[in-house]
C-alpha cells in the first residue's frame, strides 16, 4: 500500500502521464497552469524583457496613458506613473517580487505547518493538545488582522511581511497534515515499519509524509495564492513591502490619488494580482481533482 514502493514499481513516467491525462481534462486547470507559467517566465526574465528599469525616472513623462489612448507613446506601452516611471517595467519586476515573496511564504509555512501537524498527529495526547490549542489561538485572528498585528510588532518591510503572512498560513497546513496522519498512522505498513524498529522520525518522514503529499501539494498551491494576495493587501495598507520596491499592492495604493485622472495606474496592477491568484486557484482545483479521484465525478 505504500505509495513509495508503488511509485517505484510503476515508474514515475507512467504516473506523470496518468496525472496529466486526468489534469488536462479540466480546461480551467490547464488555463490556470498557463497563467502561472507565463507569470513565472516573466518573473525570471524580468531584466531581459522589461523595456526600462523598474526605478528609472523619466521626468518629462509624468502619468502618460497607455499607448492605445490619446497622448500615449509606444516608448511606454502601459504608460507611466506619477513619478514618471514606466508602468510595464514595474509590473514585470513586480512579478518577480510577488513570486519571491509568495514562494518564501509557502516554504516557511509548509515546513513549520507540516512539522507541527506530523508531530501533533503522530504523538497525540498532551503534545497534540498543546499544538492544537496554539493553532486555535492563531485561527482566532482573522488572517489579514493577524498579519497586521505581527507587522505592527516587528515593523513593516519585505522580510517581516513574509514572516507575518507565513505565520498566518501555518494553521491550514498543520490541520491538514494532522488529519492525514491520524488516518494513516494505524495502517499496516506503518505498524510494519514500527515492528522493524524504525524510530518516530523515520516513520513520520518516510512512511507517513509521502501519504500526505497529494493534499499537501494542493494546499501549497492555495497557500501560494493566499500568500501573494495577503502580501499585496499588506503592501496596499502600507504595512508590507516598502517603496520604491515595485510591488503590485504598493503600486495600487500609490495610484489612489489619481484614480479619476489616471485610472490605468489603478487597473493594471490589480489585474496582475487577480490573474496570478486566479491562475493558482484554477490550477489548485485541477490538481485536487487529478490527485484525488475520489472527489471527482
Amino acid at each position, binding site marked *: 500500500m505504500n505509495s513509495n514502493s508503488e511509485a517505484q514499481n510503476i515508474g514515475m513516467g507512467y504516473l506523470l502521464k496518468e496525472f496529466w491525462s486526468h489534469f488536462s481534462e479540466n480546461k*480551467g486547470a490547464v488555463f490556470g497552469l498557463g497563467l502561472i507559467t507565463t507569470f513565472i517566465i516573466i518573473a525570471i526574465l524580468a531584466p531581459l524583457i522589461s523595456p526600462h528599469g523598474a526605478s528609472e525616472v523619466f521626468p518629462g513623462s509624468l502619468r502618460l496613458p497607455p499607448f492605445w489612448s490619446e497622448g500615449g507613446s509606444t516608448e511606454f506601452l502601459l504608460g507611466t506613473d506619477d513619478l514618471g516611471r514606466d508602468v510595464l517595467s514595474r509590473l514585470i519586476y513586480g512579478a518577480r517580487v510577488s513570486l519571491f515573496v509568495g514562494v518564501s511564504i509557502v516554504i516557511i509555512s509548509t515546513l513549520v505547518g507540516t512539522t507541527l501537524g506530523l508531530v501533533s498527529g503522530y504523538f497525540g495526547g498532551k503534545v497534540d493538545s498543546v499544538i492544537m*490549542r*496554539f493553532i*486555535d*489561538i492563531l485561527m*482566532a*485572528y*482573522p*488572517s*489579514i*488582522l493577524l498579519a*497586521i*498585528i505581527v*507587522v*505592527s*510588532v*516587528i*515593523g513593516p518591510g519585505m522580510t517581516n511581511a513574509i514572516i507575518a503572512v507565513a505565520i498566518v498560513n501555518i494553521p491550514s497546513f498543520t490541520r491538514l497534515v494532522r488529519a492525514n496522519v491520524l488516518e494513516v498512522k494505524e495502517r499496516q505498513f506503518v505498524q510494519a515499519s514500527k515492528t522493524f524498529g524504525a524510530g518516530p522520525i523515520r516513520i513520520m518522514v518516510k512512511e507517513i509524509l509521502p501519504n500526505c503529499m497529494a493534499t499537501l501539494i494542493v494546499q501549497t498551491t492555495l497557500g501560494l*495564492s493566499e500568500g501573494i*494576495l495577503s502580501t*499585496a*493587501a499588506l503592501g*496596499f*495598507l*502600507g*504595512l508590507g513591502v516598502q517603496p520604491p520596491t515595485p510591488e503590485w*499592492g504598493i503600486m*495600487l*495604493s500609490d495610484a*489612489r490619488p489619481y*484614480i*479619476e485622472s489616471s*485610472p490605468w495606474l*489603478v*487597473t493594471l*496592477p*490589480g489585474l496582475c*494580482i*487577480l490573474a496570478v*491568484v*486566479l491562475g*493558482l*486557484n*484554477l490550477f489548485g*482545483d485541477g490538481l485536487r481533482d487529478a490527485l484525488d479521484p475520489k472527489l471527482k*465525478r
Partner: protein
Amino acid sequence: MKKYLLDRLLQLIPTLIGISLFSFFIIRMVPGDPVLLMLGERGADPKIYLEMKQSLGLDKPVTTQYFTYMKNAITGDFGNSLVSKRPVTKEFFDRFPATLELGLCAIIFAILLGIPAGVIAATKRNTPVDYLLMGTSLVGFSMPIFWWGLILIIIFSVHLGLTPVSGRINVIYDVDALTGFMLIDSLNPSVLREEGLGPFISTIKHLLLPTIAMGTIPLAVVARMTRSSVLEVLRAPYIQTAKAKGQTYRKVIWVHAFRNALIPIVTVIGLLFGSIITGAILTETIFSWPGIGKWLVASIHARDYPVIQGGVLFIAMMIITINFLVDVIYTYVNPRIR
C-alpha cells in the same frame, strides 16, 4: 450531544487564556521601550515618562501586570487610546455598529445571490450555465478586494456618477446615532419629519459599493458551497425516490434537495461572519468607512498600542464565540453528530 458541547466549551478555556496572553504580550514584544515608543519625543520628560509607565502598570512585575490587565479587561476596562485619550471600550463600541451594518449587508448580498447561483449551477451541472457561474465565482474568490473596491469606484462613482466614494451618509445630513445603524437611525421619526427620506436614500447609496466589495468573496464561497452541497444531496437515494414518485422537478430540487443541502451552507455562512473583520479592514480603508477595520489600521500606523491590544482581543473573542455558536447550531441541525 450535551457532552460534546461541554467538551467543546472546555476546549475554549485554554484558547481564551492563550488569546489574552497573546494580546497582552503584543505590547511587550515590540523591540525597544514601549513607553518611549508611545510617547515619542514627549518621553524625554522624566515626569511624563514615569506617569506613562505607571499608568500602563509597566513598573510592576510581569505576572502582576498580566493579572491586573485581565482583571480590568473582565470589567471592560482596556485603558485609554493614546490618540483620542478616550476609553478603548467606548471607542470600539462607537465604531462597531458601522462595521456590523456593512458586514450584515455584505452577507445578505452574498446569500441572496450565492444560493440561487449555486443551486442553478448544480441543477445545470456541466452545461455552459454551470461553467459561467462557477468561472465567475472563482474569479470572485480570487479577487483582491482592495482593487475591486477601487474599480467599483472608477465605474460607479467616477464614470457613472451614481454613488458617493466615502463615508456612511452625506455630510449635509445630521443624524443622531441612536442605534449606530445608519439604516435605522435615518428612519427615526424626528429625522423623517425634518429631512424626509433623503438621509435614508443617502445611506443606501453609501452602502452599495462597500457592500459589493466586501460581499464578493463571501458570495463566491456561498455559491461554490451551495453547488457542491446540492450535488451531494442530488445523488442520495431518497432524491431518486422522490423523482420516482413523480414529484415535479421544481419540488424535488427546492423541497427535498435544498433543505438537506442547507446544513453545510449554514455552517459556511456562520463562518463568514468571522471573516467580516478581514473584509472590513480592507473595505473600510478604501471607502473611509468609520468602522473597526479602519480604526485598527489607523491605530497601527499611529502605534496606539492600547487600542491595538484591546481591539484585537475583542475581535478574537468575538470570532471564537461565533465559531462556537456555529458548532452548536451545526450539532443541532445535523442529528448525526449527536
